[in-house]
């Protein structure tokens, strides 16, 4: 078989780097002990229209993984981060952490409860490379809610 490798040379040191292969080297860290951060932010989505009102209750992410992984999620409704009461009954920004354990290739849906009313929704995910032990593939993200008020529309004017 042919085996193609991509090498990069440093512009200011004598180090020659090899670029890892996706799916084979994924999950390892960068050169040495450095940790990179996988950051994902969806677009703001207005699934019921620009001036609709939705009671957002859940978000779900489907993922395929081959090893344990820790994922941090934040949800923004109308660009304001969702909030939750902490153990001291203080209202704080909601940060959702998924600690997925167990090995072997598996597909999972991780879900989180949210409570916010608004029009748009956006999800941010952060994953540190040292929190991924194997391959991690992220699949479609979903938000679940009830439409309180659909988008307004004006009836077409008749001739």
């Amino acid at each position: 078989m042919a085996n193609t490798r991509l090498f990069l040379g440093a512009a200011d040191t004598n180090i020659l780097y090899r670029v890892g292969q996706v799916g084979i080297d994924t999950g390892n860290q960068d050169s040495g002990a450095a940790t990179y951060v996988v950051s994902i932010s969806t677009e703001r989505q207005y699934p019921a229209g620009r001036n609709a009102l939705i009671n957002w209750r859940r978000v779900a992410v489907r993922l395929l993984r081959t090893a344990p992984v820790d994922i941090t999620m934040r949800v923004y409704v109308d660009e304001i981060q969702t909030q939750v009461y902490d153990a001291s009954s203080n209202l704080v920004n909601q940060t959702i952490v998924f600690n997925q354990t167990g090995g072997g290739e598996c597909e999972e849906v991780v879900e989180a409860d949210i409570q916010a009313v608004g029009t748009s929704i956006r999800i941010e995910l952060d994953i540190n490379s040292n929190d991924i032990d194997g391959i991690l593939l992220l699949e479609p993200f979903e938000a679940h809610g009830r439409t309180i008020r659909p988008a307004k529309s004006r009836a077409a004017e008749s001739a």
Partner: protein
Amino acid sequence: MPPLEVFTIAGPGGLQQSQADPDPTGYLEVKNTVIYRGRLAARSPVYESTTIPDSAAGAADAIVGAAMHLNYLYVAAYDDTLNNVNLVQCDIDGTNPVHKAVIWTTVTAKPTAVIMQSFTAGTATSSEDRLYIADFDQNFATSYWTGSALTVLTNSLDLAGPDNTVFSYVKDYQFHVWGTGYYEGIILRPEMLRFSTPGSLPLADIADGTDRAWHVSDWIPIGRRGNSIIGLEVVNQRLLVFQQDALHAINGYNRTSWSVRNLSPYIGAVGPLAFDHYAGKICFFWSATGPMMTDGETVTDIGEPIREIINNVPSDTNIICRVDPTAMLAYFFVPTGAATSPNYYYAFDIQNKLWTEGQFLDDAGVAINIGSGTRVVELGSAAVGPTAAPSSLVAVVDPVNYDTTIDLTWVAGDTAYNTYTAVHRDVTTGFTPASGNEIGVANPGVTEWEDDTCDSDDQYFYKVRHLRNGQYSAASNQDDATTALARPDLVKLSGLVNGIKVTIDNLVANAELNIDRSSEPVATWSDITTLNNQPASEVSHDDTTATCATQYNYRVRTEEAGSTSSPWVQAGPLNACEGVPNITGATYTIIPDPVKDWIRSVKVSWTWNNKSRDDRVWVYSRSPAGGGSYVKLAEVSLDYYLDSLYVCPGPDDIDYKLETWEDNTTLVDTDYVLAVDPCLAS
């Protein structure tokens, strides 16, 4: 309350900055991901492959060029103390660097780029493999490495004599060497593109009949005079000629057939490393207006989804484009912030036409400044095997089934998605892992194994090896565990008139059977006896110390000096003094249908004593009476059985057989009701 509506708000996609209403495949940010198997994947990292030495065996200061040549990776490295550029040969996996030559001396400034091209030249009777080396800045003469020596390339355009040739770029196209930006002495023609003879063989130059590899008339002017050629690339059998503001393509096979076509009079490449090809079919390049691609026919803007980003990227000659064909990604490395070298990348997924972004980091977590890049292709190589062996293997008996099961855990040495782990077992220490002692293979990502195939009271030795693409790693450390004595196969309780009988199916010859008892519900176990030196067969013990009408549980285990006792086997509860169920009398009644007298049923009734909850009577019948085999009809806990409806006139006479089963497991009594004629007048 209606169910929640489901809205898909994102799918596998890339950066999207140019849609007023983004669709769910667009992202505001996708950093350090790539598209893989149709989904977003955390991207793979970079590894430090090796460090490149200078000519004094110290550390070079920058890597300014790299290329594959004769199954080796050659690197051009600049040293700002020794003021030279060095040629270093590495193995094809980027390791084992060996300093080969000093290419140029008195180099007081780091070259922008060193361009290297592998080519087979020579004479008509002998070939010579050469690695051509050009200084993009045209400060130093173009040379070639033959494997043992560096030779300065010389030729002349004016026949005045062999002068050093100073190309800014060299490329192999249609078995000719092509050099750009011809400079000889004081003559500088940056738009001039020269080409050698086929195979760079010295052939008679029509100018004067002298054998030369570079003929005086073999050159092509490209574009406007004085407009420098930035570089050359080959796609779809065309030679792409990049200027900073124009792109041309050359077709043909030799000097008589070369034809130049201007692909774009406006779009070019920003620097000598700002372009690369995918599989020789598509060339990706960064122009002054952003990332583009061309197949040698048309130029396509691929940067529209990240237009805002592009507008913030300077048109820097240091921008590097390198294609990773394995991941099908075109990386565009660009400088950000105060960096003068590329330290951030935008990656274009070739198949899905989507953008992601990210950085490669060094040991300290600082973005790597990239100075050069290349691909190497290892033909005929074996598939990648495990990169390291598993370690820290630990074997312990299972906390529950410790007479049959040993649990293993280990630390993976290779976490690739296709790395499995083979488990090996033997009864001899220091054994060699092989297919004959492989007991199973754990899936990728799994670092544990439950071996439930062990014999009892045996010591087992284990090793594990990674398995990837049919190749095994070295073995892990060895660890061992010893299983306990075999537990009794079955413990059964039955009633005695003065207690409870405990029946044990013992599997260990000459073993001791330790019997404990607890009243129901189980609270505290009391040791009631130990049966010594028991045979490997059914053994029973009559417990006459139990209090009648009290429910008891029993547990039994096997014990033997020098061995670990077996797990307990529990049975119960059962009432003491219950006795064995038996039928004391049986009869039958013929029951006609109240309306249709010719339809009859047979009710077989019996009386039995010592009946407990799980005791049953098995009812059989055969017809005609006195012949044939009995057929089982039912297992009954009551004291009668109503046989099905018969239509008269007759079937034949029927025999009934009644078996009494203690706990529905042990046959203890058999009775018969014979020759029943259901059609007799009632």
